[in-house]
């Protein structure tokens, strides 16, 4: 069976009545190191610069056929086409929408700047393609809701590009997911780097000819081109990302969210400690942000490099009554999280699924919003709205530059 006209994943989807195992040639039949064609996934990499080629490997799909590389920079496309993952069948694209049109591509690997993630995830879901999306999942909160909804509606597999949750303590997950913990003084602290954007960038220069700057900007507000705002440096400007708080923060909070069973909720209070005001354009210095959940659990993300150190003590670790312990013991243990590879194969939800990724990055976006408005916030995780602060809510759903929209 080839994948050129009838991809493996669609074959599985269309053959629900047939035992899945019968459709797959076992690896051992072919010998060590051989990958059976029926296990070969076809994919496209969108965003080839920086982390892109690393993301391709991080998907954990063995040796997927790279049918397309896509980037708004010609030099990045050339780099992708020369990579060890590429082959003569790999084609280069500048517009991701043309990649979505290809029926022979199963998986989209998204490693673009974060202000593009949501729109490309949604386009992939609408095209019926499975998604591996680099962290942070989104640029603002409403995007994450739209992605999670699109993934659910179109029944595609989504995996965020962070894997710490796969090593989380499932016993703790079981305890906090049981509903038996009413109040907890647990405090989890996580450190991220402190890197800031430049506030004194001189006037920009014309964009280089190899870069389609209008497409690079996409949904972000128009600002004159400057080389220190693009190609990785974008991380440190609010229009495109939220600094290392969302960049590395997504790695830190995602295992916490799974372990403490927060994949369907969020913090209820967010308290910042950072420089004020923050610059309107560039990410600035900050010390810590405390995120408090309804059960009392606190997650503190901190830099350790600025301001007054966080010094609040942990509270009491919860203990169960013998009766509750019996109830907990009677509950089934949580199933191991499903890898992206197995999720594609079995159509089960991947461990780092879209709703979980949205909840993880939402907490980080809230931390950044609190730093930017310089005040404590209250969050309603069910309504996904900041409570009693009309201005802060304006950061939750940010208008996009036309024609790009959720």
């Amino acid at each position, binding site marked *: 069976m080839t994948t050129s006209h009838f991809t493996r994943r669609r074959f599985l989807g269309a053959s629900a009545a047939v035992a899945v195992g019968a459709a797959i040639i076992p690896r051992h039949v072919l010998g060590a190191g051989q990958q059976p064609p029926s296990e070969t996934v076809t994919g496209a990499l969108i965003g080839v610069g920086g982390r892109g080629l690393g993301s391709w490997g991080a998907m954990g799909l063995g040796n997927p056929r790279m049918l397309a590389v896509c980037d708004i920079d010609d030099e990045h496309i050339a780099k992708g086409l020369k990579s060890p993952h590429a082959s003569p069948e790999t084609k280069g694209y500048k517009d991701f929408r043309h990649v979505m049109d290809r029926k022979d591509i199963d998986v989209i690997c998204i490693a673009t700047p974060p202000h593009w993630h949501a729109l490309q995830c949604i386009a992939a879901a609408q095209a019926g393609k499975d998604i591996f999306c680099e962290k942070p999942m989104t640029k603002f909160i409403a995007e994450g809701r739209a992605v999670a909804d699109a993934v659910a509606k179109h029944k595609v597999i989504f995996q965020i590009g962070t894997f710490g949750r796969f090593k989380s303590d499932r016993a703790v997950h079981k305890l906090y997911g049981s509903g038996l913990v009413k109040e907890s003084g647990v405090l989890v602290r996580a450190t991220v780097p402190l890197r800031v954007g430049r506030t004194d960038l001189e006037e920009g220069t014309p964009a280089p000819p190899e870069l389609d700057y209008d497409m690079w900007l996409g949904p972000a507000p*128009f600002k*004159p081109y400057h080389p220190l705002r693009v190609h990785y440096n974008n991380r440190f400007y609010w229009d495109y990302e939220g600094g290392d708080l969302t960049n590395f923060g997504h790695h830190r909070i995602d295992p916490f969210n799974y372990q403490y069973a927060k994949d369907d909720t969020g913090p209820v209070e967010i308290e910042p400690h950072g420089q004020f005001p*923050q610059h309107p354009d560039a990410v600035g210095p900050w010390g810590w942000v405390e995120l408090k959940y309804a059960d009392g659990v606190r997650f503190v993300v901190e830099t350790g490099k600025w*301001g007054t150190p966080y010094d609040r003590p942990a509270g009491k670790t919860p203990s169960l009554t013998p009766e509750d312990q019996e109830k907990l013991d009677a509950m089934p243990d949580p199933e191991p999280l499903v890898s992206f590879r197995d999720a594609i194969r079995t159509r089960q939800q991947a461990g780092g699924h879209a709703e979980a990724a949205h909840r993880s990055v939402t907490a980080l976006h809230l931390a950044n919003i609190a730093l930017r408005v310089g*005040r404590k916030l209250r969050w309603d995780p069910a309504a996904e709205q900041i409570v009693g602060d009309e201005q802060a809510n304006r950061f939750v759903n940010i208008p996009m530059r036309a024609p790009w929209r959720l």
Partner: protein
Amino acid sequence: MSELSPEVAAVLETLPCDEYATAEKLFEQLLTGGPDVIRQLVVAVGPKFGDAGGVKPKYAVHGLTVYAGRPGADGQRRLVAGALAKELGAEHSDELKAFLCRQLQLCGTAGEVPALAGLLKSDRLCEPAAQALQAIGGNAALKALRGAQEKADGDRKRTLDQAVEFVSNQ
């Protein structure tokens, strides 16, 4: 052009602050100066996107925007938003006006809709003005966007069509 008063210049030197309480005192001090101080700060931001000399004034204008936008400070918010909106009609560069629109996207209210609506005919400023109107929302913003939509074409029409849809769905 307004010159920065020595008092305002002294405040600028202390921005940004390491403590919220310190910032609060400074912004209260700036707000007692009323619209004239805000105008001084806007002028000092400078005409270009990356004016190096405008870094501190930019902190100040943005700081006022978010400080006055806090819950329960409606009077201060009206003062700041009204003063920023007035500058949209003054002789400033498009880049400076785009920056002001971004601030009104955070603190603007129905009172600033007419000033923002006046920019919807500009090729450069239609986008930031429309986005500020989307953030403000409500009937006044919708009416302004629809009014400009009818006569727009090209990129402006695209921007306004999208903005009308955004506000209509709120």
